[in-house]
């Protein structure tokens, strides 16, 4: 062998040997390292400045919130041991847990909560501050008590206080870092179960277990410290390498799996395939201000003309349920009566409605025309694994009843800008939620032009939505939500398509007792590696 050849072989062998997979479990008895293959990067670790899902993943590990959200959508203690809501719904008194400390060592007190909530309410450009906008003042009468005074009652306040953006901050750390708070590993402090050790943007965030953590919320069997010694949040944006990372053992979990891969992975049986249902609805929305969508008959016909079962099968590979109603059944406030008035797939009825409404087909298969104008709709959408299949399916189905659909594909940011500008006739979007308050977001008249992209402005709907937020009676709030669902269906404001089933993939060594709905692994306190 020539010298050059020997060198090449030596180099290959050296590379191959050093390519031995890193030991996941470390030394015997050591707390294991868990690698989480994530889809996107945390924007900032300042929770009050972002609403990004990837930031939330890290926030839940680093920080704690006053209350926590359980898998049955009930609120449980966290940093607040208990709370009392005044009869008029305008005062919330939280009693804080004792013995909590910041990662930096300082004891946690009510003053920290007051600082956090005051900063959040007044932070210029905070995308989430509206979640506590009715809060007028925050008092900390003693180190263990926090009192929130509201201008008007807000039934979903606890939901806001359980979210990642309401993570409680250490005033000392925020003041020390100034504008740079949350931008790097050394510029953050929390009371959470993990501490940021290293953060290389767009590559990895390494978090070490907080050994003093004993105050985990009761939604976990293990209240702390975490079983895992280290968590590596590894960014792999491309679907194929991300899934491959779990398959070859470089990572033990990924929260997002292409639906077309689920069948193969299930058959191979090498990984855990965990399916769960969070609260989500994929739908087609109508812009009521654009003719002919101001015509209820047209909207109803389109509702009858879309075959949701075919969409579940074709676009979701069966991983979902056809959505006839507005909300998923699991959400508190869901109205079962909606099923009796929902629009099923009935293309004959769709055609009949359009015929009766004066939309005539010059010949079979042609686009319908009324007063010389064709029934043609601009359909805005943004690409995604499911959307790529849904759009042609909807286009073909609606063409079958004589409706012309003109899809226009836009990149995500341009898509939302176009919707806000009202360029659409119809649009495809998915929404994920934790309460029925999603109805307020989407159908309250003051939410136009977005997220009320329907142009829906109805005093009766507004009245019920106001009741749903401000009433102190749970029964009254439920009745209001139900009334809004009825109005939405009766007025055919959208075409609900699918409640998607989520699928995550984990290695068989990973012990995953629960998936916390949209929060997925949440604080990872019960997570372990065998």
């Amino acid at each position, binding site marked *: 062998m020539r010298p050059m050849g020997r060198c090449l072989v030596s180099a290959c062998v050296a590379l191959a040997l050093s390519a031995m997979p890193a030991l996941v479990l470390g030394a015997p008895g050591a707390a294991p390292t868990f690698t989480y293959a994530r889809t996107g990067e945390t924007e900032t670790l300042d929770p009050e400045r972002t609403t990004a899902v990837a930031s939330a993943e890290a926030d839940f590990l680093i920080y704690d919130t006053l209350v926590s959200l359980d898998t049955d959508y009930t609120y449980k203690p966290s940093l607040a041991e208990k709370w009392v809501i005044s009869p008029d719904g305008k005062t919330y008194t939280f009693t804080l847990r004792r013995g909590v400390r910041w990662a930096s060592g300082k004891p946690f007190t009510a003053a920290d909560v007051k600082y956090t909530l005051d900063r959040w309410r007044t932070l210029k450009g905070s995308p989430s501050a509206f979640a506590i906008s009715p809060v007028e003042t925050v008092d900390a009468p003693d180190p263990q008590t926090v009192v929130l005074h509201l201008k008007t009652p807000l039934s979903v306040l606890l939901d806001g206080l359980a979210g990642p953006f309401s993570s409680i901050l250490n005033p000392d750390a925020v003041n020390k870092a100034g504008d740079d708070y949350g931008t790097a590993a050394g510029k953050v402090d929390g009371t959470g179960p993990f501490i940021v050790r290293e953060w290389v943007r767009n590559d990895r965030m390494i978090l070490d277990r907080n050994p003093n953590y004993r105050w985990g919320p009761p939604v976990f069997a293990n209240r702390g410290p975490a079983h895992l010694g280290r968590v590596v949040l590894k960014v792999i944006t491309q679907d194929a390498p991300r899934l491959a990372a779990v*398959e070859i053992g470089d990572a033990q979990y990924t929260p997002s799996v292409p639906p077309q891969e689920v069948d193969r992975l299930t058959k191979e049986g090498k990984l855990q395939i965990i399916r769960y249902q969070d609260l989500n609805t994929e739908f087609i929305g109508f812009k009521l201000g654009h003719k002919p969508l101001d015509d209820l008959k047209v909207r109803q016909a389109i509702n009858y003309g879309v075959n949701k079962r075919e969409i579940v099968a074709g676009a979701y590979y069966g991983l979902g349920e056809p959505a006839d109603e507005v909300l998923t059944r699991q959400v508190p406030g869901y109205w079962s009566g909606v099923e009796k008035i929902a629009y099923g797939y009935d293309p004959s009825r769709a055609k009949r409605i359009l015929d009766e409404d004066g939309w005539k087909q010059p010949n079979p298969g042609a686009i319908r025309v009324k007063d010389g104008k064709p029934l043609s709709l601009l359909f805005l959408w943004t690409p995604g694994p499911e959307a790529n299949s849904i759009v042609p399916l909807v286009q073909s189905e609606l063409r079958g009843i004589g409706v012309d659909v003109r899809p226009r594909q836009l990149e995500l940011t341009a898509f*939302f800008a176009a919707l806000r500008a009202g360029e659409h006739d119809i649009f495809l979007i998915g929404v994920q939620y934790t309460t029925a308050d999603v109805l307020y977001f989407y159908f309250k008249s003051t939410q136009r032009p977005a997220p009320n992209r329907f142009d829906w402005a109805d005093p009766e709907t507004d009245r019920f939505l106001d009741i749903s937020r401000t009433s102190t009676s749970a029964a009254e709030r439920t009745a209001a939500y139900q009334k809004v669902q009825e109005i939405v269906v009766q007025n055919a404001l959208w075409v609900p398509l699918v409640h998607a089933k989520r699928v995550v993939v984990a290695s068989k060594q990973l012990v995953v007792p629960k998936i916390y709905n949209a929060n997925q692994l949440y604080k990872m306190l019960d997570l372990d590696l065998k």
Partner: protein
Amino acid sequence: MAAYLTGRLLQTVPVLIGVSVLVFLILHLTPGNPALFVAGSDAPPEVVRDIERSLGLDQPLYVQYARYVSRLVRGDLGRSIQAHDPVLDHLVATFPVTLALASVGVLWTVLVSVPMGIVAAYRRNSALDLATIFAVLAGNAMPVFAIGLMLLYMFAIHLRWFPLTGYRSLATLDGWRHIALPAITVGSGVTPLLTRLTRSSMLEVLNQDYVRSARAKGVREAAVVIRHGFRNALLPVITVIGLQFGLLLSGAVITESIFSLPGMGRLVVQAIQARDFPVVQGAVLFFSLTFVLISILVDLGYAVADPRIRYG
């Protein structure tokens, strides 16, 4: 030489001014709103308005540009809209990754293309030459992402010789393992062009009189090919290497995405998607400056390769 260098460096000023105006206009005229990205798609209208106000996006375009330029002349590239940290920090963090990727990629290309091109030209019309031409055609026809994915499946997933994703410093062997597949991938995009160019350039010089004279003088064949042949064929090769290196430094976006490298290409793509104007503007200015500097270095390289070229 000093006067030449000063002149060339001064030329970068109008280039950078032109680039800053163009990028600013293109970004602000592109549909999409950074406030919307920060607020989240379902944010209430007043939240989006508040964020627009806090970012100064409610001001007329000329006011926004004036603010941008006034910051720029003070050396302040601004803060990222998404991450809230200085743009310079992002550039400083991502540039070494892209520099390593481009450098190792070009090194790989040179190591493969130049010998292949020389041998193919020297053995013109032989089976080896035909094989080279076929390899060049195949390489040209294959998109970089396909090469990257194939390398990934073969060497990282199937054989597990290399890590799947990520970046480590090249000061360690682990760093070289991490950069190997991405560098071969980006290099593969340039290899066919450089091989073809080396071959045609060599073919031209190997037929020159001075090569025949060298052989007639009894110079060793290897010296004829390398010293008399290749050195004279080097100028176009240097130009292409320089330009391609500049292009790779401008972000090998696809490769960085496939291998999840935290480089500038991904930074810019994500910033464009989020309409993170300060990051895009800062990165494009940085790319322009890098590109201009590399052009100057290439010009200086001509003088080294060909003593007849003198500047100043």
